């Protein structure tokens, strides 16, 4: 029996599980291969929905589904918390003292937010990267009649690299619709010398922000928050006062990976094409937890899973890697509440921004629902 364990019930985990169930269906039926998915969360959440939740435009119930409903019946789903990967004994240790042996392991455990890594941020900041925080932010936005909102990219790297721009554009129009835009100042900060790391996106976004009268602070690497004064301070020595601070907090990979010695500088060192974990045998990684220089976005996990699952299946049959991930990424970008655009790129081809349209915005809203077909490996 060849045992394959996938850790993680997010997009990377469920899509990989479903691809493996397809590639190895005959082996699983014969009892030669077993595929297990271990996750500590019984439900998968469609994280892009949190952005809409922060504006009261989405409900928590609509953006989550039970993991068991998303995964092929050929895959055993275990709702357990992983505490360590024992790479010597080739087993996953879970809470309660049990161990799960593996021949191959797929790490798809995503990231966790670490606002406490930035002094003062947990006390004085808000964010929209989890359900509770997005709802709290929504309450604050509804209550703010006048003042100043600062959108700041604090953590690098972070999930959904276009989200800080999206939330700023959406804030502008959302406040305008409520007749408060002239009473609420908006500021946007970014760590490097332009408004986004993608040069073509920054070229489009900068005049759009200026047109909306958003204060732009570049070369701003937020270092701490003065909770008493409600001031955000940067490594470069700039200070920004705020009434609401919408921050992108620091991110890290799952704690058990650090415990297991599977990280370097906080992330899992991964081959950029085969997705094998460097220095390990038969261990693979995809999605937000890798150290790859690609976006931490669901589309990346989606496209990586196509290559990774073929390589895992090939190894189960005694072969070397047969597929390569080429860096493919697609990101929708909301340019307000009623227009959107998208970018598509890979390692060899940089992104180009298309002019935003209502049609792309509606396509994005449609995909927010169609996503569950992706999670099932069908789209």
């Amino acid at each position, binding site marked *: 029996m060849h045992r394959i364990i996938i850790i993680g019930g997010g997009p990377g985990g469920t899509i990989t599980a479903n691809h493996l169930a397809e590639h190895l269906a005959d082996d699983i039926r014969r009892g030669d291969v077993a595929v297990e998915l271990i996750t500590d969360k019984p439900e998968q959440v469609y994280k892009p929905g949190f952005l809409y939740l922060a504006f009261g435009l989405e409900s928590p119930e609509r953006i989550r589904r039970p993991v068991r409903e998303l995964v092929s019946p050929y895959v055993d789903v275990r709702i357990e918390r992983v505490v360590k990967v024992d790479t010597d004994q080739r087993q996953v240790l879970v809470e309660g003292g049990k161990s799960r042996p593996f021949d191959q392991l797929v790490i798809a455990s995503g990231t966790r937010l670490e606002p406490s890594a930035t002094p003062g941020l947990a006390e004085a900041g808000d964010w929209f990267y989890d359900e509770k925080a997005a709802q709290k932010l929504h309450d604050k936005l509804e209550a703010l009649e006048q003042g100043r909102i600062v959108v700041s990219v604090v953590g*690098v*790297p972070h999930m959904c690299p276009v989200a800080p721009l999206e939330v700023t554009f959406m804030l502008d129009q959302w406040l305008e619709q409520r007749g408060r835009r002239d009473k609420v100042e908006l500021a946007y900060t970014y760590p490097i010398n332009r408004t986004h*790391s993608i040069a073509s996106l920054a070229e489009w976004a900068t005049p759009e922000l200026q047109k909306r009268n958003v204060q732009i602070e570049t070369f701003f*690497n937020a270092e701490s928050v003065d909770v008493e004064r409600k001031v955000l301070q940067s490594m470069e020595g700039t200070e920004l006062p705020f009434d609401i601070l919408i921050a992108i907090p620091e991110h890290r990979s799952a704690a058990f990976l650090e415990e297991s010695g599977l990280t370097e*500088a*906080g992330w899992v060192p991964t081959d950029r094409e085969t997705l094998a974990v460097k220095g390990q045998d038969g261990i693979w990684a995809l999605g937000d937890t890798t150290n790859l220089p690609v*976006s931490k976005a669901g589309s990346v996990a989606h496209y990586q899973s196509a290559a990774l699952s073929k390589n895992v299946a090939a190894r189960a049959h005694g072969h070397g890697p047969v597929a390569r991930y080429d860096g493919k990424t697609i990101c929708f970008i909301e340019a307000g509440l009623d227009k959107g655009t998208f970018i598509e*790129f890979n390692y060899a081809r940089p992104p180009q921004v298309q002019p935003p349209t209502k049609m792309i915005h509606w396509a994005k809203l449609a995909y927010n629902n169609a996503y569950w077909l992706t999670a099932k490996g069908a789209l």
Partner: protein
Amino acid sequence: MAEAVKQEIDARGSACPGPLMELIRGIKASSVGDAVAVLSSDPGSNKDIPDWVDKIGYELVSNEDHGEYHRFVVRKTK
């Protein structure tokens, strides 16, 4: 003194988050005195990386031209 690079980041072909963001990630995870190397195939890095290093007051130890890519080494000095 030859630089002792604590971490080398291969950001070649990285459109997003991009070589400078990858460098900032590496620097944030480093200790004062550490040197971090980043490989970039983006021509914009020749301006972006020295500009940022200058702005923040760190040390650009080297910028090597390897033809299809550059290798930057930056030391966190404070």
